[in-house]
């Protein structure tokens, strides 16, 4: 049985991105749930409390068994619909989401998921993806070309270093959209610079 937090996250991600994109792909659900988890780390949430884990795929994208199982379950119950390979909330799913979103156990994580999905307002989703691929854990997995668990001890140090600098630079913020956009813009620039240097070497 998937963790209820994974199921809630799927519902909220589909709900919040519906207005922006309509239906979205399963890969995007994994991406935004991973971004939500990372924003949660910035917000002081222990990784172990998130409810489910992430691994890197062979292509270097984030993937969660918990999210995948939640999607499968909710498709079978009719809360999530699929058409042309894209996912969306059914009317039943919308109604169910409205019923659970007020539960206290989801209150804190909603702040992070809203910040993650709202970042799609500030930049193209392809740029968000490029940025997340540059975060320490995924970048490390890409270099080792392994399928490994993400946000492990080794990469957490680099992540915490970035978040420490970010937190000091911004001061106290109650809207996690602010650090999310700054951090994604930073990672996006880091990705651009890395590719520019690699292209110079090749040519």
């Amino acid at each position, binding site marked *: 049985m998937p963790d209820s937090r994974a199921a809630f996250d799927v519902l909220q991600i589909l709900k919040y991105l519906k207005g922006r994109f309509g239906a979205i792909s399963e890969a995007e659900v994994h991406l935004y749930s991973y971004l939500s988890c990372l924003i949660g780390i910035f917000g002081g949430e222990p990784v172990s409390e998130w409810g489910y884990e992430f691994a890197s795929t062979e292509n270097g994208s984030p993937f969660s068994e918990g999210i995948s199982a939640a999607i499968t379950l909710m498709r079978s119950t009719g809360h999530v619909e699929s058409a042309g390979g894209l996912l969306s909330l059914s009317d039943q799913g919308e109604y169910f989401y409205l019923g659970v979103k007020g539960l206290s156990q989801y209150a804190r994580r909603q702040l992070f998921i809203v910040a993650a999905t709202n970042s799609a307002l500030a930049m193209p*989703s*392809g740029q968000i993806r490029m940025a997340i691929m540059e975060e320490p854990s995924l970048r490390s997995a890409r270099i080792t070309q392994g399928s490994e668990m993400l946000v492990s001890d080794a990469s957490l140090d680099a992540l915490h*270093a970035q978040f420490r600098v970010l937190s000091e630079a911004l001061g106290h913020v109650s809207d996690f959209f602010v650090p999310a956009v700054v951090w994604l813009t930073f990672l996006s620039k*880091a990705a651009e610079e890395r590719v520019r240097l690699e292209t110079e070497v090749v*040519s």
Partner: protein
Amino acid sequence: MRADDYDLGQVVSLAKQLYVPVIYRHFGDPGTEALRKILDFLPKMFGRRDPELVNGDIFVCILLDEAVEVNSVAGLLLKTFDALIDAIKPPCTIQLTFDGTYRVWLAIPDDVVALSKKAVVYQFSGRRDIFIANGDECVVPKILSSLASAFAATRYRSLEDALEEYKVGLIRSSRCEIFQGAWRDPQRLELKPKPEHIMRRSLERFLQIYLGADVEVHPEHIVDESHPVDLRVFWNFARQEVLIEVKWLGISTDGQTRTEYTAARARSGAKQLVEYLDENRVRSGSREVRGMLVVFDARRRFRRGRALSHADAFYYENREISYMPDYAASRSDFDEPRRFFAEPKV
């Protein structure tokens, strides 16, 4: 990864200068709430009013204090988005209200700085997106400077739509800042030596950003006769893959050595790609793999003893390449080749 693999100084400067934290610093949560409403509105507006064709400034604002005035003259109240789109004639100002209606003035605000002290203000001016908060102007960084607005398009669902936009919006007039680096001369008559890597990088970057977060675009590191594929485009979870081969036509030179490629090169590229698809069919397993030839066409009709006329410079603009055999017609795994004509500047 170690912390020092990143330039953390960039975090500090972005936190100081980027429009989102600047708006938050001045206005707190109400400011970012208003900002999100504007960010949600802009792609919808630009979806109906192409920013490439906008002539004049457009201001969009949300008041944080209802007592502030946008303009001494009362604006036109409009209840629907369609009515607003019909009414927009730059220069103009649009106020988004919290009840979902709009006010429009066919003029810029009386005093933008004063307005920005009590409102979140966005300005589209001269292909720049600017947010003004409490007098602070923040230009929004564009991931692709060739696009008129950072908020014009956020993603293309299909590779075909993305390639069409790339062809028309970025390559035709050499708007792409990466592709600009391929030209040897400002008139865009000749290319630099070995321009392929520039073209590949230009296409790769555009597709990475605008194809959506579920699509991956990877460059191939070995590109030669037996490995003609330049880019691989994956659709995660859908197990689809498109192999893109990039060719260029025209003249490349460093002033001494000269290379000229004609339509024959495009045809041989198609053949190479088909051979590669056949050789690698077994390895693709359950993935649906297609091949696509992309041709950057920089040909000009140079004639011995004659200066290049405007007609000759544009001679190949609408001359499509015929392929024989027509692999696109006979194979389901070979897409119609795409030709991107890059105009000269004469």
